[in-house]
């Protein structure tokens, strides 16, 4: 376990939480990412917006160290993702539309398992706190198999809370959630804003823009536009539709 507190950037890390430079990624002959340059400052909330197949998840996987780029460099918290993945991972929180829990373990067992993988000293207290924060303390002894989609996503949020990462990578976290669950997720993301760096992918502008400082539009593996997240949704939608129509025309 690193001596550096997880909520702090690595020594020597600049104000940039994520720095991606010239990243290309191929699946066979197909170029999924065609030279991405992206910088995310510490404490910033950035949304990656794009249609299915635009390369959003691939980019997030590369930043998270699950995939390696064919070309280019990725730095997370000032650390090289290629060679220092083990030092980066404690600083990352990962939330996707796939909850990543074992159905036949209870909510408590699942969280305890992951908390212990993160080598937390007081993992018991961290697990209890996480369950309390997402409102699942009364279901702690129930097998995860019996949980609804919304409850699973809340449990996945609790897993992030357990090890308190400084950077959150969220891959379409709203997918499949009902309205109350979306509200809860957005409330938690609102709480995280400012304290943590958040990079979220989505194909739904309505869900992606409300909290973001910046909205970056990806199309065919390229960044095609950067929008100000503070704008009205209708104005953003207009700009986004214009970008999509240009893409279709190409």
């Amino acid at each position, binding site marked *: *376990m690193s001596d550096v507190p997880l909520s702090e950037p690595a020594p020597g890390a600049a104000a940039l939480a994520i720095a991606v430079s010239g990243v290309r990624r191929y699946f066979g002959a197909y170029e999924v990412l065609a030279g991405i340059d992206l910088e995310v400052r510490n404490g910033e909330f950035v949304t990656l917006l794009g249609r299915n197949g635009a390369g959003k998840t691939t980019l997030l996987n590369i930043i*998270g*160290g*699950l*995939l*390696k780029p064919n070309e280019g460099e990725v730095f997370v918290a000032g650390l090289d993702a290629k060679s220092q993945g*083990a030092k980066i*991972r*404690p600083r*990352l929180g*990962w939330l*996707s539309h*796939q*909850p*990543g*829990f*074992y*159905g*036949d*373990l209870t909510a408590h*067992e699942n969280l305890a*398992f*992951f908390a*212990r*993988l*993160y*080598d937390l000293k007081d993992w018991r207290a961290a697990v209890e706190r996480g369950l309390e924060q997402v409102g699942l303390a009364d279901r702690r002894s129930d*097998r995860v198999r019996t949980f609804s989609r919304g409850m*699973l996503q809340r449990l996945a949020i609790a*897993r992030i809370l357990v090890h308190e990462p400084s950077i959150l990578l969220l891959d379409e976290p709203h997918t499949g959630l009902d309205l109350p669950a979306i509200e809860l997720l957005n409330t938690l993301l609102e709480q995280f804003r400012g304290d943590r760096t958040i990079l979220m992918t989505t194909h739904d502008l309505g869900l992606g823009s409300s909290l973001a400082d910046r909205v970056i539009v990806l199309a065919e593996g390229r960044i095609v536009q950067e929008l100000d997240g503070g704008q009205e949704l209708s104005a953003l939608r207009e700009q986004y539709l214009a970008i999509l129509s240009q893409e279709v025309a190409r």
Partner: protein
Amino acid sequence: MKSTWMILWKDLRLEWRTKEALSAMMVFGFLVIVLFNFSFNPGAEEIRSSGAGLLWIAFTFAGTLGMNRSFAAERENGCLQSLLMAPIDRSSLFLGKWAANFLFMTAAECFVLPAFLFMFNVPIRDQLGTLIGVSLLGTLGFTCLGTLLAGVSMNTRMREVLLPVLLFPISIPLLLWAVETTSAAIQNAYLDPLMMHGQAADVARATDGGALKFLVAFDMIFGAVCTIVFPFVVED
């Protein structure tokens, strides 16, 4: 090391809850023994010559069935992704899985081996220790390769077919040594009664330990190689 224990604990607990892999392995291994018994109704002579092969067929078929399931829980709901995002050495994931597969296959063998000895009436006597030792060494190597290849085949569409297709050819040396040593143990078990009938000279085989040494070497070499290779299998 701690993360290896955590992976093992998690797999044991999941198996304790579901009993999916172990029950299937035990029943399948037992059925192989029963089918051979009914099909060929072998006598002492046939068991001496081919009993070891039959036993290892039951062991490995049952083991493959279990190892095919070993990454199923990781594939469900994106659990592997969550594991890979945790700050653990990827090799510890392999070691935990290998340990779990070894324990499951050994547990299945604890059920299959007595069934074999009973149904074929093998007078095992003082050869039981050798038989158990060979079984453990063979199982260690077989599950080592099986765990790596289960990881390789996990993301393919034909994973249930691919695992045995890849595993059995690579395991041939291991299985040959395991069968040879097991065969020697079984023949030695028959030695005393046969000597009484004056037929010992042509069947007596000493377990000189040659094949046993190969088994140990195989386990050590492939254990190291698979631990090093596995991170590349799951990373990209």
